[in-house]
């Protein structure tokens, strides 16, 4: 038995059970032609077989040697079927894949993650996977994978469950043996430390046998799966070599490498030991190979030995491998049993903002905002259509999200009520036509700045202390007129500083007592409020958290003696998720507290940016274009202070060209802001190759927090001076 590897740091080369060792240079040093000659020499003897165990080595062997009778590894055709995501194998084995998306631009990645309630993975085509929870993390992981390993990457939804896998072996398409291993103890990297080993169920054996025969599998293989709590198996990956735990299976009585060499079929009545565990064993290094000290890093002292001392990462980047030729299937896969489909609209198609922009002229002062009232009208109409059939619904306009005077007046004119978080905001709302008697006060500082009297429609206290403080204020002479006295309830699964979280009966009793006192003193009814950003949680988690939080309506109703008059749903909804808003509300109302299912209940909806994000654009001009080709960048006269949300989400960009506004297509360029901040990057991955000095650009979807949170950085004056 000869050990073959590409670094003396590979531990197994030092073991005394090897008869000989072949140490090749690392993959960053290998000359492909010389490597081919050496490997051919090594397997020239008819009784010599090579069993590769590195993913990329298997691929290079298939590429350079094709089908070779003494290379016991899958050929190129087989490898094409296991390229990630392994759609072909999933079909053959009848195992569903997790949801995935090979479309990894900002918008698609953001949408995929938002609709993955358990988070997602960024997975390389060849190797490596990173758990990601935000689009920034996903794109960073994708860039790392492409840079370090080469090839494509995709996003895959995390599946909670128990990791298990199949190790199998086939010779020229004939399945010889296979075992099922369920991981018991994992290392922090998720590698198997101990596992249960069992025979493969007959159904899976038959499907695997057919698949191996169809593709002509040769050599070892591993199928990685997740067993969900319900017992269903989902296919994660297929690896074209034995798993690292293959000796564990041997110790249990299934020696698959031996079966491969001897072409030995699984014995009829075998009794496997139930599992294996690993131990750490220190061995003396081979005197021939020796050992070398830690390599030094460029700046921070010792650079620990890397995870892949053989330089396998380099191999992925050396372009020795051709792209898989198999059809991958769809760019994304969503299970057919999903109850709430992902919205299909893209941001661009949803708004069409560029068709509404004015024709720019040289006299325009840029950067400037263009308010697109029509889009607010459209969104309000669409939302009202969604809510059709629900009795007693009220739409609220979030002042903090979109305080632009023109849009405030329009929202008031459309019959929306104002949702304010301070009394200053309430004043502004009244000035722009909102009815104070219908206004809603939310947030931790809703009574600031101090007033001697306030009139509003409803307020939702953020804590029991706020209720008590309000009682004290009334005692001290504060005059409050409100029809609804309410509380905001905390979401159990979201770390948040806001809302009441009931831990015991005493909390509930104290809250009920204070609500009762305030109701009596104000002559008001009571309400309950849930407020979490759907744009952050995604619709699945939003429904879950809302249902759970509003479950406290029932015990409160028990103590207060009547059901709530109002349930208020707050928190910004993502602009793409309008199509699932109604079904989400229906679900929460059907499964939340029993007392929410009364005909008299008034439903208030504060969807925040869903209504207003599309209603403004920022028009800017190119100051300077830098570089050439795909790396070209342009600097514009807008800055992060004008579009502060540019750091957190991609805005659609249009260019004024040939007398009309046209969307700027995707590419590899960047649009940079005018300020001297490194982070002043307004857009990435756009084709800016044709942009020149003086060109007009317009950033869409700037009608929400881009309006309310803009700041005057780089204008030579502080905000208060400008005001």
């Amino acid at each position, binding site marked *: 038995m000869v050990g073959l590897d590409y670094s003396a740091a590979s531990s197994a080369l030092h073991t005394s059970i090897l008869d000989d060792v072949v140490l090749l240079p690392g993959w960053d040093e290998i000359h492909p032609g010389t490597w081919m000659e050496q490997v051919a020499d090594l397997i020239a003897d008819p009784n010599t077989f090579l069993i590769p165990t590195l993913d990329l080595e298997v691929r290079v062997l298939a590429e350079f040697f094709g089908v070779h009778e003494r290379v016991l590894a899958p050929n190129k055709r087989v490898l094409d079927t296991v390229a990630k995501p392994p759609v072909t194998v999933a079909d053959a084995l009848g195992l569903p894949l997790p949801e995935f998306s090979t479309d990894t631009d900002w918008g698609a990645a953001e949408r995929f993650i938002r609709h993955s*309630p358990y988070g997602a993975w960024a997975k390389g085509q060849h190797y490596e996977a990173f758990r990601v929870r935000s689009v920034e993390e996903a794109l960073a992981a994708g860039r790392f994978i492409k840079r370090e390993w080469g090839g494509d990457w995709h996003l895959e939804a995390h599946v*909670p469950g128990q990791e298990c896998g199949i190790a199998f072996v086939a010779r020229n398409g004939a399945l010889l043996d296979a075992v099922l291993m369920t991981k018991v103890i994992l290392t922090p990297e998720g590698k198997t430390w101990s596992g249960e080993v069992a025979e493969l169920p007959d159904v899976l054996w038959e499907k695997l046998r057919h698949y191996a025969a169809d593709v002509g599998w040769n050599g070892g293989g591993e199928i990685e799966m997740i067993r*969900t*709590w319900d017992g269903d198996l989902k296919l994660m990956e297929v690896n074209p070599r034995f798993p690292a735990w293959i000796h564990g299976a041997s110790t249990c009585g299934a020696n698959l490498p031996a079966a491969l060499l001897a072409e030995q079929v699984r014995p009829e009545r075998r009794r496997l030991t139930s599992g294996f565990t690993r131990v750490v064993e220190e061995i003396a290094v081979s005197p021939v190979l020796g050992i070398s000290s830690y390599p030094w890093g460029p700046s921070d002292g010792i650079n620990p030995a890397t995870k892949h001392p053989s330089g396998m990462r380099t191999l992925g980047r050396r372009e020795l491998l051709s792209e898989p030729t198999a059809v991958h299937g769809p760019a994304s896969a969503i299970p057919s049993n999903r109850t709430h489909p992902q919205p299909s609209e893209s941001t661009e198609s949803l708004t069409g903002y560029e068709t509404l922009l004015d024709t720019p002229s040289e006299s325009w002062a840029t950067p400037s905002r263009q308010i697109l009232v029509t889009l607010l009208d459209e969104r309000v109409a669409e939302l009202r259509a969604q809510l059709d059939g629900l009795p007693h619904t009220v739409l609220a306009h979030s002042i903090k999200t979109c305080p632009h005077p023109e849009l405030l007046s329009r929202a008031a004119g459309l019959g929306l009520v104002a949702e304010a978080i301070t009394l200053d905001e309430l004043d502004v709302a009244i000035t722009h036509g909102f009815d104070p008697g219908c206004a809603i006060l939310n947030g931790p500082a809703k009574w600031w700045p101090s007033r001697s009297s306030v009139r509003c429609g409803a307020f939702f206290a953020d804590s029991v202390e706020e209720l008590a403080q309000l009682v004290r204020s009334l005692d001290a002479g504060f005059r409050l007129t409100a029809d609804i006295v309410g509380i905001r309830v905390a979401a159990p699964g979201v770390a948040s500083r806001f809302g009441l979280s009931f831990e015991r009966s005493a909390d509930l009793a104290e809250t009920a007592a204070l609500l009762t006192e305030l109701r009596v003193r104000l002559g008001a009814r009571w309400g309950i409020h849930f407020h979490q950003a759907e744009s952050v949680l995604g619709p699945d988690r939003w429904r*879950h958290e809302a249902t759970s939080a509003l*479950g*406290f309506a029932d*015990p409160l109703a028990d103590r207060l003696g009547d059901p709530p008059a109002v349930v208020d749903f707050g928190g910004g909804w993502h602009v793409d998720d309008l199509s699932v808003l109604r079904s989400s509300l229906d679900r929460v109302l059907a499964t939340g507290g029993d007392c929410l299912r009364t005909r008299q209940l008034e439903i208030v909806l504060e969807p925040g940016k869903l209504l207003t994000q599309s209603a403004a654009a920022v028009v800017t001009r190119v100051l300077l274009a830098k570089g050439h080709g795909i790396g070209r960048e342009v600097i514009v006269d807008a800055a992060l202070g004008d579009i502060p949300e540019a750091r957190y989400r991609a805005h659609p960009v249009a260019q004024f060209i040939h007398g009309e506004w046209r969307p700027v297509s995707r590419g590899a360029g960047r649009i940079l802001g005018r300020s001297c901040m490194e982070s002043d990057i307004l857009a990435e991955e756009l084709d800016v190759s044709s942009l020149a000095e003086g060109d007009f650009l317009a950033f869409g979807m700037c009608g929400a927090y881009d309006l309310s949170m803009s700041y005057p950085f780089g204008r030579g004056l502080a905000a208060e001076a400008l005001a």
Partner: protein
Amino acid sequence: MSEQDRQRIDSIGLSRISHHGDLCCREARRFVLRRFERWVDTGSRLAAIPLLVSWGPTRWPVSWCRLAEPDKWVGDCGVHADLAGELLTLAGVPYARGRAAIKPPAYAVPHWRSTWSASDANDVWIGDDVVHHEVLRIGERWWDPTEARWFAGPGAHVLAGCVAAVRVEGADWQLSEAD
């Protein structure tokens, strides 16, 4: 499993968290079950039971309002099994309560006896060779609510020991081959 052990285990009643039929238990039950709502799926909620309710001596009867009272929840396998049943019922997952006879490592038994004795809790579940453990039957599989793991049935190992026998409440015992 000896006949003596079998009789001893069969004499132990199934653990049920009791309800005073009043606001105290109605609200307390909601507080207890709400703690599990931060997890979206049923499997995660069941897995959270031993994380939120540390395994330890329990003096029965246990009511919802008593269970919800302290900051640190403690419960034996009966509390775990009844909570698991509540969560499964809420999720609409059919199940049956059951019990297992487990052969623990010999040195564990005196520790459990001492701990239960110090808490003045009934230790009838602890035999010399075999201990009583409450489990659930969900579909075709057995669920250990204290270790939050599936097990195959008689002959399987859980961390507490080897499952000598198991039965659904009201049905016959299924013995391991060794028994």
